[in-house]
């Protein structure tokens, strides 16, 4: 049960959007790179963005419950 403030909700919205875009973009970039080392670095960061998105989604989905 968490009470989100308006600014917090705004932040979650912006940051989850940003992370989702980064997941797409870094994925595309990893595909485009020919160098294996670069591919690996980009893929690692993409995975980090996936974790971040999941963390923030958990906060979002837990919000507003038990408040009726």
């Amino acid at each position, binding site marked *: 049960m*968490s*009470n*989100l*403030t308006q*600014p*917090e909700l*705004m*932040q979650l919205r*912006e*940051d989850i959007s*940003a*992370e989702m875009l*980064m997941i797409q*973009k*870094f994925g595309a*970039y990893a595909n*485009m*790179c*020919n*160098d294996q*080392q*670069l591919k690996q*670095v*980009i893929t*690692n*960061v993409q995975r*980090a963005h996936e974790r*971040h998105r999941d*963390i*923030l989604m958990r*906060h979002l989905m837990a919000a507003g419950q038990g408040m009726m």
Partner: protein
Amino acid sequence: MTHHIEHSGQGVQMHQMQAAGGANLLTDKNILSDCLASQKFLAACYNHAVTESANDSLRRDFMGIYQEEQNNLKAIFDVMTRQGWYNLNYASHQDIAQVQHQFQQEMTQGGKHFPGQLQYQAHAQGHQFNQHGLQAGQFAQQHHPGFNQPYRNW
């Protein structure tokens, strides 16, 4: 390579490059540069998110993600450096000495003292700006008019 401009149904202009072998429109350097810019942007977002957080658990998670984005930024920077794509612009000894002198000067003016002052003064005495043949304070006054303010007594 041929380059022609098409107009789609919505009036959006689209560029199509037809390269032999389907070469990328972006070089590896372009790609990494954009990744770097993205990480900088994200780090700034999360820095801001932390300032907006009232909830402890949320704040903690924003801080953690912030740290990871900064670390990822560094990782990309390191890769680019290894490829020779990043040129660090190092400050000259002269520029460093000028700034060092500026603050040593400011901190010892007006006879005000602050904790650890003596070690700063000792450091200043043997130091490189004296090589320029200037008296302590003279250099600062030449280049920083209106600089002589009493040290702020916090």
